[in-house]
């Protein structure tokens, strides 16, 4: 992240744009937006030093609702955009927002390699286990028995386990949050942004329109009974065996972030150009 001036007391409202969100009333993404602005205020970052990058979907509307720089990008490609931005402008704080469809299906491959590269940025996936914007198709995290006209009898396909995939692929910070707890989520976001390398936060964010059953999540979530571990083996066992509603920072790695040198490489390009001469 960029340098923080803690002397400046900032208010969350400073990070909100004038554009009113058009999410459905009751949508968890309102809380996530609140967590973003609270976290940015706690960090005291000037809005112009933050870039919020997103792909496509309900959750990916979030850059427009902030007063920071934003890039509402191509479906599933938010991480590619963000990676390019961060390696060329390491002074900026880059936060990437996505949903379970955009992030795990269309952008699934980018997710793996973003974890592997470990570039210093924060990836937030608002997981509602459905494609909300396109009216309720099952996503990679939808339960196999989710039975609707669009998935008769359920998908019968094992859901993706994003936290395990992130850990196995090399993410340096892994957490799970619940949108209905915006203060706790903001606190985790602050930690994620401060942590060097690729930080991944899955935020359980109910879709009240296509998954009204997810309103029950507020009764199911609970704080993780253990503190974050730096041991990936221990983290793997915890994440693999928890109930999916365990909240908090679950893993803090210590891998060195990937940051290629910028500017002159010292390579004499004329030699290379000779190879391409006709």
């Amino acid at each position, binding site marked *: 992240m960029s340098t923080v001036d803690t002397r400046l007391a900032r208010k969350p409202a400073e990070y909100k744009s004038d554009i009113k969100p058009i999410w459905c009333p009751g949508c968890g993404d309102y809380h996530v937006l609140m967590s973003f602005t609270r976290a940015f205020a706690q960090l005291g970052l000037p809005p112009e030093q933050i870039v919020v990058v997103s792909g496509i979907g309900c959750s990916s509307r979030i850059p427009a609702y902030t007063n920071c720089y934003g890039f509402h990008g191509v479906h599933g490609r938010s991480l590619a955009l963000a990676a390019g931005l961060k390696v060329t402008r390491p002074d900026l704080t880059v936060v990437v927002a996505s949903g379970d469809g955009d992030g795990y299906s269309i952008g699934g491959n980018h997710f793996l390699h973003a974890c592997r590269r470990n570039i210093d940025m924060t990836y937030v996936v608002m997981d509602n286990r459905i494609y909300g914007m396109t009216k*309720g198709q099952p996503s990679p995290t939808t339960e196999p028995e989710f039975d609707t006209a669009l998935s008769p009898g359920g998908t019968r396909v094992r859901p993706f386990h994003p936290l395990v995939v992130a850990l196995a692929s090399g993410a340096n910070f892994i957490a799970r949050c619940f949108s209905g707890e915006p203060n706790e989520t903001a606190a985790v976001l602050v930690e994620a942004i401060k942590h060097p390398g690729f930080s991944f936060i899955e935020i359980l964010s109910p879709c009240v329109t296509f998954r009204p059953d997810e309103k029950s999540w507020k009764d199911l979530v609970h704080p993780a009974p253990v503190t974050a571990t730096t041991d990936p083996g221990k983290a793997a066992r915890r994440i693999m065996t928890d109930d999916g509603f365990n909240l908090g920072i679950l893993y803090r790695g210590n891998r060195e972030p990937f940051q290629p040198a910028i500017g002159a490489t010292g390579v004499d390009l004329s030699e290379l150009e000779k190879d391409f001469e006709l």
Partner: protein
Amino acid sequence: MSKAAGSPKVADLNDLLAVAYQIEIDAVERYNLLADQMETHNNPELVKVFRDLARAENIHGEEIRRLAGDFDVAAHARQIAKFERSESPEQADLGSAHYLMTPWHALQLSLAGEERALAYFTSIVETAKDPKVKNMAAELVEEEAEHVNLVHRLLRRYPQPSESWAEDLDPPVSQE
């Protein structure tokens, strides 16, 4: 000194006034957000209800500011009045919003908020050692109790809607 889990520390009268002020301001922000949502989703009746609630909370905030006199209660609130492990007591639950909600639902949200604020200030009365804090908290308890009664009175005007209140003949759900 009083400190419920995740609540701001209330060490003296200035702290208490700052927290009380912040609670009202947080409620204003939340009601305005709900009003904006209702505006976007074309529920004008609820826009009015939430804007009215926001205005009422703003008046309460200004009353606390007046009580604080020359002390800059807003600036102090920004420093100390942070609810870390829960939402500010009077903030309406965003997760309970619905685009077809009725004034009865809005008032239920308001009632829950006022009751949380009442419980919060009651806990300060019970735990505060400083008599000034205790006395002011007791005044705030009375105030919140009056707000609870007011919402109950308003609810008499808006009876509970039928069970089919959320039925939409042209629903956004296209899958079934």
